[in-house]
């Protein structure tokens, strides 16, 4: 009798809202960043080993796929930093009202894209 009781649906049916989206994205970007940092470390080590490696890495990062990875990492780091600041403010006990969490969540989401574009433009000597 006990064992055959079904489990009611949870994540399949629960509606997403800004705060839960920011929370799950914070985790995902965290994992991406760890992988990203490891990748950057390996590439830097590789650079030391010779000039041919440099041209190869240069070629890779100028390809479409390479650019996608770089921009993706820039976004992921931007998101993580903004979301972490949000977390720090919350750890101090502020910003728990529903309207405020929605607003700060939106700032994190839009801010991360804004940061990405800004960093891209700075990198291209746009300013």
């Amino acid at each position: 009798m006990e064992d055959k009781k079904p489990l009611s649906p949870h994540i399949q049916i629960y509606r997403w809202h800004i705060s839960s989206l920011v929370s799950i994205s914070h985790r995902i970007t965290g994992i991406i960043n760890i992988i990203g940092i490891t990748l950057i470390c390996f590439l830097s080590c590789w650079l030391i080993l010779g000039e041919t490696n440099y041209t190869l890495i240069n070629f890779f990062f100028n390809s479409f796929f390479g650019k996608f990875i770089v921009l993706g990492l820039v976004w992921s780091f931007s998101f993580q930093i903004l979301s972490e600041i949000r977390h720090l403010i919350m750890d101090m006990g502020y910003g728990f009202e529903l309207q405020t969490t929605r607003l700060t969540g939106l700032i994190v989401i839009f801010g991360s894209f804004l940061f990405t574009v800004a960093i891209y433009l700075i990198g291209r000597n746009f300013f």
Partner: protein
Amino acid sequence: MAQISLPKNSEVNKGKYFKDKTGSKNIRKINVYRWDPSTEENPRIDTYEVDMDNCPSKVLDILNKIKNEIDPTLAYRRSCAHGVCGSCAMNMGGKNGLACTKPHSEIDGDIDIYPLPHLKVKRDLIGDLDGLYKQYESIEPWLKNNSTKETTEIFQSKEDRAKLDGAYECIMCACCSTSCPSYWWNGDKYLGPAVLLQAYRWIVDSRDDERKARLKKVADELKLYRCHTILNCTSACPKGLNPAKAIAEIKKMLATANV
């Protein structure tokens, strides 16, 4: 580790379709989670066409209408119908709330009604809350005062009394705890927002002498710190309380006080 998908015996199938018999022009489709413990079948979603011209404003009114006029086999908890008892907590339109205070006009399109998420289902919309009540018991939700005799009054200033506002109003409907993904994945160890809000309520009560012991008791990696401020709890609370903030306050007390 979190199990995202449902176990085999919990997968939801398509159920029966109850066509409207009143001939009304104002029809709404209501999809309700059903499970009958007397059969070996999986849970199913039954769809009811409900005449909205003769239906009061809340989701509970729809359920009453279905039970009284269409399908008497539907089972759900309800009692006061005024948002005080917390019996009719369920998931409506993808969000937890009390059926008796949730206006159906706030939900767009067809209305999906499920039991509270990630609970063992006893029947239809009735979830098993035993685990939550055990956890509630574990925080010892009663006044512990050693200094005064049972017969004397314990005074409390207005300021100290005000600290309980936003915590004592909780009706333990479990909308918050069952909306929390952390509670879904670690419900056996993590206390969850409802119980932690009550823990907070006794920690800040000036008449209670066990503040330190209470704080020590919840200061646990799993019991307390599984809260990752997802804030599903606060957005679900039908009484407009803020369990997430209460949990943050407990964390703050633990970080700043010498416990």
